[in-house]
């Protein structure tokens, strides 16, 4: 195989040596292994993280060293691309050098083989003596070979009165080599094309410059960050709130981004998440409409994970989702004046609102429609068969005062029942990333914390009015009075439960970091769909490249070239001497077995008496 390939060097000029080196098998092996080792780096080190992470991890010195080596984005560094490039160059050299010879060999007439080989010298060989005449034996040999699919050709040599039959199988085995290596070259070329070579070049020349400010409207993005409208290949992402549309996508580059204009507008009509009964997401679906500048609808449909939508070569994928600015209706109770009516307020996720009467600002961070948790997390003894419960909507916000104190809150909209009493539940944390501490405030018969606030207020009044009285008594008396005033329908049992819960809530409130409690009374939910949009005409090239690669490997491995050469010569003593030889380009063991089968068959058919095997 390769043995025949690397020999035959006569001309020792320098260019020739360079070509030999580039096309050598040894270089190929080394490059393949080198590339494998280089690829490991990027899997050990998380790629393309914000630089701060790396500084924290390695310290400033090593951070600089690793950055200069390009270890934060290995697969786009020049040295990595250089190895790939060198491999492609080497493969190309090898292919160009070998192909003509292989093609010639494929078309080589069998007669040439007949004179080039001696059957005795082949990897497998046997000599028989047949009583049949040479012509007759030749016919038999031909028939045997034809039966086994060897396409025999006979060749008579007038010089030494012998007949040669050549049988070949898998003549196109070399095509396997050509196909695999050509596919790899095509493949790498297409991959490089995908690596935005045109954009890279444009950035190098300076005609395209990424925008670094993420907080400006589209109209404010500098012209240099816009990619050409007719860009042949791009891959960008965009987040579109429900009911809104976009005609651009963003491509992240380094610490900035580029803007690509799309040939149409994408309107996200609706986004929704389907769940399994376990609360695990089952599907993410964006219902989108594609329309042109004039507003004419071009296509409409769903984009789901694993099911992109294609329009005119542009593919739209479901990539992610976030809150798209849901409208939240809130009620706020002031802890310093719990008796007053709750204050109503509306705002959207992402907005900040002032808390009147305090120096606090609320930043509405997120809203989630569903909170599915294991049932065990709520009840000590979950209802049988119910493994998961949906706690319903919740929202998170950060409260920050001018003086700098603040906390993050996660508040559930619906009361959560626990051991017979329902609670308003709110998670609080004062350090980002710390676990939430949960505050449980019992809800009264009308389902909100109004009753609790009235009680709190009454207690505060009482404390100022009745110094010196028995604490236990007035806490309970006040409770009875508040219940009589505001919730006369409560049963004794409910009252007892409520009272206990209220007392522990009051104790919990001591550590509460804000002077108010905000509850959620309603919402107008709005998602934003994260879409990925790609245009990549080279896709089809890649697919064909893959198909050719697989076909080539199959041919190489499973259609080996096998040759059988039979030389017949009339013996002076009568009869015919038959020398049979055979080789295979692969799997010598299997071929030896096949050859043994052949030998038996030849012996039988040629009625040979003294066939001796000399393997």
């Amino acid at each position, binding site marked *: 195989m390769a043995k025949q390939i690397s020999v035959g060097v006569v001309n020792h000029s320098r260019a020739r040596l360079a070509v030999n080196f580039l096309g050598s098998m040894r270089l190929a092996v080394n490059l393949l292994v080198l590339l*494998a080792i280089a690829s490991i780096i990027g899997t*050990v080190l998380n790629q393309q993280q914000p630089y701060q992470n790396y500084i924290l991890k390695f310290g400033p010195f090593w951070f600089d060293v690793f950055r200069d080596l390009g270890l934060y984005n290995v697969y786009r560094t020049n040295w990595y691309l250089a190895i790939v490039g060198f491999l492609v160059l080497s493969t190309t050299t090898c292919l160009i050098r070998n192909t003509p010879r292989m093609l010639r060999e494929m078309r080589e007439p069998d007669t040439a083989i007949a004179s080039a080989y001696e059957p005795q010298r082949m990897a497998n060989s046997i000599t028989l003596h047949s009583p049949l005449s040479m012509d007759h034996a030749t016919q038999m040999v031909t028939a*045997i070979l034809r039966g086994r699919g060897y396409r025999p050709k006979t060749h008579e040599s007038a010089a030494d009165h012998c007949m040669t039959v050549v049988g070949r199988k898998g003549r196109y085995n070399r095509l396997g080599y050509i196909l695999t290596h050509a596919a790899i070259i095509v493949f790498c070329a297409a991959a490089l094309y995908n690596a935005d070579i045109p954009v890279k070049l444009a950035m190098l020349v300076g005609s395209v410059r990424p925008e670094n400010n993420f907080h400006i409207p589209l109209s404010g993005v500098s012209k240099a960050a816009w990619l050409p409208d007719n860009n042949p290949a791009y891959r960008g992402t965009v987040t579109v709130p429900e009911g809104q549309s976009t005609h651009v996508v963003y491509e992240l580059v380094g610490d900035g981004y580029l803007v690509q204009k799309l040939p149409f507008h994408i309107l996200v009509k609706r986004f929704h998440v389907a769940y399994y009964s376990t609360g*695990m997401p*089952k599907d993410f679906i964006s219902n989108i409409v594609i329309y042109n500048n004039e507003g004419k609808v071009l296509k409409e449909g769903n984009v789901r994970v694993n099911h992109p939508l294609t329009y005119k070569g542009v593919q739209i994928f479901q990539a992610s989702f976030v809150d798209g600015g849901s409208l939240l209706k809130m009620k706020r109770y002031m802890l310093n004046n719990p008796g007053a009516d709750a204050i109503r307020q509306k705002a959207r996720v992402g907005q900040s609102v002032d808390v009147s009467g305090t120096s606090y600002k609320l930043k509405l961070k997120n809203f989630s429609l569903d909170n599915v948790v294991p049932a065990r997390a709520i009840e000590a003894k979950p209802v049988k068969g119910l493994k998961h419960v949906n706690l319903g909507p919740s929202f998170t916000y950060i409260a920050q005062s001018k003086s700098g104190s603040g906390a993050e809150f996660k508040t559930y909209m619906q009361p959560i029942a626990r051991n017979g009493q329902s609670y308003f539940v709110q998670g609080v944390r004062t350090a980002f990333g710390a676990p939430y501490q949960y505050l449980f405030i019992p809800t009264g018969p009308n389902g909100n914390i109004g009753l609790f606030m009235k009680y709190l207020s009454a207690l505060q009044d009482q404390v100022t009015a009745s110094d010196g009285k028995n604490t236990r008594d007035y806490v309970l008396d006040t409770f009875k009075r508040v219940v009589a005033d505001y919730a006369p329908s409560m049963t004794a049992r409910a009252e007892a439960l409520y009272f206990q819960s209220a007392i522990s809530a009051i104790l919990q409130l001591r550590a509460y970091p804000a002077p108010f409690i905000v509850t959620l009374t309603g919402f107008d939910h709005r998602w934003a769909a994260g879409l990925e949009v790609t245009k990549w005409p080279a896709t089809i090239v890649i697919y064909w490249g893959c198909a050719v690669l697989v076909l080539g490997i199959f041919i190489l491995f499973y259609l080996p070239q096998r040759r059988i050469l039979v030389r017949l010569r009339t013996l002076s003593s009568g009869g015919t001497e038959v020398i049979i030889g055979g080789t295979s380009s692969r799997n010598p063991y299997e071929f030896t077995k096949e050859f043994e089968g052949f030998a038996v068959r030849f012996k039988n058919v040629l009625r040979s008496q003294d066939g001796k095997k000399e393997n």
Partner: protein
Amino acid sequence: MMASSHANELLALTKIEAEGRWTNRLSKLDWLWFAGLSISVGILVDVFNSQFWFWQYVVLAVWYVTLIAVGIHWRPMQGAFLTVVTAALLGVWLYSIGQTPANDIVLRYVLQGYAGVMWMVGFLLAATIAYLIYFFTLLEKVGRLATGLTWAGVLMGFIGLGVRWRETYIGHPSWGHVPVTNLWEVMVVFCACTSLFYLYYESRIKSRALGAFVMPLVAASAIFLLWLTFVQHMDRIAPIIPALQSFWMKLHVPMMFVAYANFTIASFVGLAYILGDRSRKRGGGGILARALPSGELMDDMMAKAIALGFLLFTIATILGAVWAAKAWGGFWSWDPKETWALIVWLNYAGFLHARTSKGLRGKQMAWWSFMSLWVVTFCFLGVNLFLSGLHSYGKL
């Protein structure tokens, strides 16, 4: 007179030619195999005609051709395939008539996916012990028992997988999936495939000694599987995340494991080669030299396993890229799992190239093959355990 003898001669030649034809070497069973598969495929097409799309027909056609070829090339596959399909269909049928593992002993102890897998683990562990005993004693009876136990394990494993496929739909039709989506299911596929391919190579080289090298790894995987079952409870059927609900995933994952199976076998044959080589150099009196087949035979088997693994691995990686293109919008994201697949591929491409050049032979290639086990194992398990990325669904 002349004409008649000429005609006789022609007839004789035609006969000689016809006798050599490969179709002539097919047995009646082969024809039955071919006919049975053709009829089954015809029925499938007829039943699913309205639901199939283009690529499902392609996959069906590939299965059809592959099964015919494999069944004829290696006849035990015919019986094995029929046994698995029949038993799995029996399990499915039992479920369909309302039986459950709770009220049906056959389901509970044999055919239920979980039970099938436990049987597989038991048989394969027993087979490993038998192979080890055989290796040291060379008792023919023990060797046959080892082969038989391995077959039993393989059959139970595939039956279990088949029935489990149906079970994923029971109770929760929307959860249904091919059982190749979590580490547990994938380990079952790995154990069963590695054993099956080992049996194939065993029957080709007609030596059982290599079982003592390959099967201990299968046993280790089976024990890992037990740990996943009893400590991690990963045998529970769970729904799958949206990214895994892909046509291409169903093809990509099993094919990867068939490739891993071949690579694994090749690496242990490499180990056997190295040890056998050492033993022979010391004079050849030891057990190793006595039990192991010749170095050339092992070298050939190793190369064959790697070649088949390489072909399948290439296809599987391409299928993975197609899946990634559908799910994430790009063929290749340099995610750690993808990158490790590339590393494995480059490693074996290097191996195959090195083998075709004269310089590297025998022991060096055996070392290369053996050391590649770590590369493959890291790609298959290590990435999920130690690195993060899109493929973290396999996390413990």
